[in-house]
C-alpha cells in the first residue's frame, strides 16, 4: 500500500514536471517564450491546468455507450500504472520484485489497447473510432520490434527480473544474491581479459557490455515513441485530421486521467529503456584507479545515501530520454500510415531479429 502511494506520488510529480517541460521545450524550439504568467517562469502552469481540468463539467455524450465510456479511462490508467509495479527505484526499493517482471510489463501494457478500443467505441464518434483503430493498429505492430529489442537485452542479462538486470549493470553486481562471483568484462568479451566488475559506471551498462544493444536501444526507443502515440508517430491523434483521436469526447476529470495515462506511458517506456539498456539506477561515472567515482556516487546499499543516489540517477536518465522524446516531436513531421507500417515491418523488425541473433552469439563470448 505504501509502495502504491509512493509510486503514485512520484509519478504525479514527474508527469507535472513533464507537462511543464513539454510546453517550455516546445516554446524554446520554436523561439517562443511558452507559459510565463503563473508562478516564476510559468512553472505553476501545469498544476493550474490540472486544477482547471478537475473543476470542469464531466460531459458524457447522450448517444455514447455510457458504461464503456466511463470505464475506459480507468482501465487505460490502471493498465499503465500496473506496469510501474515492477520498476525498481533503487537497489532495495521495488514495489513488486517478481521474477518475470519484464514479461509481466509487456503483458500488462497490452491491456491498455483494450482500454483504447473501449474509449473509441464508447464515444460513438467517428473521430474517436478512427483514432482508436489507428492507435491500436500502431501499438500492436510496434510491440513486435520493441519486444525483440527487449528480448535481446534479456538474453544478454539472462534474467527477466528488472532488479537483477539493474544489479548486473554496475559496481554492486556482487551484492545481488546468487551473483556473488560473477564478473563483468569490457564489452562483455572475456578474451580481452579486462575486468570491469569493480570499475562500474558506464562500462558495465548493457549498451557497453554488449555493443549491439545500442542498436536494440535505438529500435526500442523508436518503437516506444509509437507505443505512447508520440510524434512523429501521432497519427492516432493527428489534430489536423482527427481533432484529438480517441479522447475527443472526454472532458474534465476523465480527460485528466487519459492525459495522465498518456504521460505515464511516456515515463514508463523511458524507465524501461533506462533499466534495460542504460544502466538502470547505476551511476554513469566509472572508478578510475584510486578516484572511486562510481563508489562515491552509488552510496551504501540499503541506506538513505544508496537509495537517494539510485533514485537520482534513474530519474535523471529518464528525464534525458523524455527530453529526447519532446525534441523528436518538434523535429520530425508526422509519418503517413504506410510509412509507419513500412518502418515497422520492413526496417525495424528485420534489424531487431538480427540483433537478437547477435545478442545470443555475444552471450556465448561473455561466459
Amino acid at each position, binding site marked *: 500500500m505504501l509502495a502504491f502511494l509512493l509510486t503514485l506520488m512520484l509519478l504525479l510529480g514527474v508527469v507535472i514536471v513533464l507537462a511543464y517541460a513539454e510546453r517550455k521545450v516546445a516554446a524554446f524550439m520554436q523561439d517562443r517564450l511558452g507559459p510565463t504568467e503563473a508562478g516564476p517562469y510559468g512553472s505553476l502552469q501545469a498544476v493550474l491546468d490540472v486544477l482547471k481540468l478537475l473543476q470542469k463539467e464531466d460531459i458524457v455524450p447522450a448517444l455514447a455507450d455510457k458504461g464503456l465510456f466511463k470505464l475506459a479511462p480507468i482501465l487505460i490508467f490502471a493498465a499503465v500504472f500496473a506496469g510501474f509495479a515492477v520498476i525498481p527505484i533503487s537497489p532495495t526499493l521495488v514495489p513488486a520484485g517478481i521474477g518475470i517482471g519484464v514479461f509481466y510489463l509487456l503483458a500488462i501494457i497490452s491491456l491498455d489497447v483494450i482500454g483504447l*478500443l473501449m474509449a473509441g467505441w464508447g464515444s460513438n464518434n467517428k473521430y474517436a473510432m478512427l483514432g482508436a*483503430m489507428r492507435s491500436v493498429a500502431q501499438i500492436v505492430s510496434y510491440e513486435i520490434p520493441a519486444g525483440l529489442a527487449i528480448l535481446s537485452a534479456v538474453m544478454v542479462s539472462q534474467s527477466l527480473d528488472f532488479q537483477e538486470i539493474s544489479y548486473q549493470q554496475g559496481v554492486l553486481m556482487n551484492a545481488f544474491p546468487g551473483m556473488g562471483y560473477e564478473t563483468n568484462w569490457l564489452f562483455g568479451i572475456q578474451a580481452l581479459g579486462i575486468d570491469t566488475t569493480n570499475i562500474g559506471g558506464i562500462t558495465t551498462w548493457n549498451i557497453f557490455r554488449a555493443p549491439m544493444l545500442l542498436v536494440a536501444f535505438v529500435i526500442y526507443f523508436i518503437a516506444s515513441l509509437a507505443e505512447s502515440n508520440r510524434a512523429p508517430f501521432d497519427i492516432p491523434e493527428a489534430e489536423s485530421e482527427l481533432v484529438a483521436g480517441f479522447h475527443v469526447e472526454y472532458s474534465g476529470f476523465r480527460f485528466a486521467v487519459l492525459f495522465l495515462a498518456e504521460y505515464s506511458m511516456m515515463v514508463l517506456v523511458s524507465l524501461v529503456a533506462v533499466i534495460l539498456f542504460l544502466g538502470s539506477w547505476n551511476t554513469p561515472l566509472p572508478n578510475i584507479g584510486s578516484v572511486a567515482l562510481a563508489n562515491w556516487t552509488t552510496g551504501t546499499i540499503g541506506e538513505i545515501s544508496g537509495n537517494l543516489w539510485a533514485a537520482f540517477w534513474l530519474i535523471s536518465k529518464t528525464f534525458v530520454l523524455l527530453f529526447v522524446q519532446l525534441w523528436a516531436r518538434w523535429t520530425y513531421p508526422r509519418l503517413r500510415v504506410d510509412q509507419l507500417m513500412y518502418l515497422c515491418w520492413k526496417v525495424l523488425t528485420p534489424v531487431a531479429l538480427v540483433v537478437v541473433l547477435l545478442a545470443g552469439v555475444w552471450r556465448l563470448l561473455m561466459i
Partner: protein
Amino acid sequence: MLFYLFALLAVLSGTYMVLTRNLLYAGFSLLVTLLSVAGIYVLLFADFVAVTQLMVYVGGVLVLILFGIMLSSRVHDQSVMSESVNKVWGTVITFLILVGLCYTILHANLHMLPWLETADMDVLGLEKSTVHIIGIKLMTDFIVPFEVASLLLLIALMGAAYIATDKQKV
C-alpha cells in the same frame, strides 16, 4: 479467499458473456474472465502461465476479436447482435458435457492424487519463478511438441499471407 473472488468473477463474467446478445459486451466480459483466470493461475504458483495468458489472449486474441467486431459493423449502426440458433442441439450437447465432467470429477479420486498431497509445501523453493524450469523442460523433454507447435504456427502464417495476397487474374 482470493480464489473464491477470482472464481466468482470468472463464472459471472463467463455467464454474462454467454447470455448477452451484444457481441462487443461479450468481448469485454471475456476480458474479465481471462483476467480472473490469470489471477487463479498466479494463486497456483504458475506465474509464467498467468502472464502468458495475459500476453496471448488479452494482448492478441481478444484485441483481434474486438477489432473484427468493430470493423465488421459500420460506425453508425447499432452494436452487432448475435442470435440464438440451434437451441435444442445446444442444450443437449451442453448437458452431455456437464454430465461427462461431473462423472469424471466424481470418479477422479481427488484425495489420492500425489501432487495434491504436496500442495501445502513451498513449490518454488529457492527459485523466484517457474521460468527457468519451464525453459529447460521445453528444450529437453518437450522439444518435439514445442517444435511441432512452431511448425504449425509457421504454416498458419503462410496460409494467412497466401489468403491476404492480391490474386492476379490469369
